[in-house]
C-alpha cells in the first residue's frame, strides 16, 4: 500500500497551493460551457444561414444545368428572391430572410428540373428524328434496289 500511494509531505503542500487555481479554472469552464451549450443545442447552423447556403448551391447547380437559357424566368425569380433575402437579412428581418431564401432555393430547383427536362427532351427528339431519317433512307435504298433488280429478272 505504501508503495502504491507513495506521497511526500511536499506534494500535499504543492497541491494545496494549486487548489484555488484549479477550482477557479474548472468553475469558469463549467459556467461558460453551460451558458453556451443551449445556444447550439441540436443545431449545427442557424436555419437562416442554412437556407442561404442551400439557395446559393441550388442556384449554382441550376446555372450549370443551363437554366439561364432553358428556364430563364425561373432562374431570374430565384436570383431576385435571394437578393430580397439578403436585403431582409441586412435589415434584421430573420424570419422573412429565411422564407425568401427557401423560396429562392425551390425556384432554383425548379429551374434546374425544367432545364434538365428540356435537354433530355431535345436529345430524345433528335435521336428519334435521326432514327426516322435512317429508316427512310434504308427503305428508299431497298425500294431502289428492288426497282433495279426487277427488270433484270424480266429479261
Amino acid at each position: 500500500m505504501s508503495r502504491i500511494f507513495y506521497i511526500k509531505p511536499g506534494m500535499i503542500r504543492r497541491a494545496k497551493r494549486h487548489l484555488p487555481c484549479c477550482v477557479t479554472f474548472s468553475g469558469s469552464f463549467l459556467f461558460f460551457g453551460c451558458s453556451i451549450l443551449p445556444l447550439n443545442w441540436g443545431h449545427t447552423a442557424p436555419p437562416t444561414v442554412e437556407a442561404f447556403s442551400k439557395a446559393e448551391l441550388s442556384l449554382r447547380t441550376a446555372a450549370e444545368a443551363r437554366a439561364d437559357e432553358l428556364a430563364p424566368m425561373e432562374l431570374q425569380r430565384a436570383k431576385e428572391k435571394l437578393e430580397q433575402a439578403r436585403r431582409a437579412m441586412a435589415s434584421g428581418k430573420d424570419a422573412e430572410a429565411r422564407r425568401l431564401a427557401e423560396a429562392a432555393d425551390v425556384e432554383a430547383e425548379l429551374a434546374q428540373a425544367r432545364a434538365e427536362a428540356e435537354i433530355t427532351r431535345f436529345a430524345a427528339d433528335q435521336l428519334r428524328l435521326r432514327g426516322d431519317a435512317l429508316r427512310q433512307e434504308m427503305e428508299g435504298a431497298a425500294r431502289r434496289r428492288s426497282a433495279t433488280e426487277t427488270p433484270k429478272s424480266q429479261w
Partner: protein
Amino acid sequence: MVSSQSILQKWNGRATLLSLLAFLSASCGGAVHNPTLERARSAYERVRRDPAVVGRAAVALEKTRLTLEEAERIWATENDATEVEHLVYLTEKRAEIALATARRRIAADEIQQLKPQR
C-alpha cells in the same frame, strides 16, 4: 289532451333550439378553414394522380407531400398564416418540380428505347 299537446310543443321547441345550438357550436369549434391550404392540397392531388409522376418522380412527390404536411401542421398548431402561405408556395413549386422530373424521366426512357433501334 290540450295540456299534453302544449307540453309536446314546448319540448319540440326546446329540441329545435338545442339542435341549433349544437350545430352552431360544432361549426364554430372546428378548425378554421384556410383557402391557401386548399390550393396546396389540390396541387399535391394533381401530381399524385398523375401516373407518370408516381412512377418516375417518387422522391419529388414525397417532398411535396412533406411540405404540405408541414403547412397543415403549422396551421393546426400555430395558426401562423404567413408561414402557411410560404409553405403553400413551396408545395406548389415542389409539385411543379415533380412534374418536370417526370417529363425528364419520360424523355430519358424514350432515349433508352430508341438506342437499340440505331
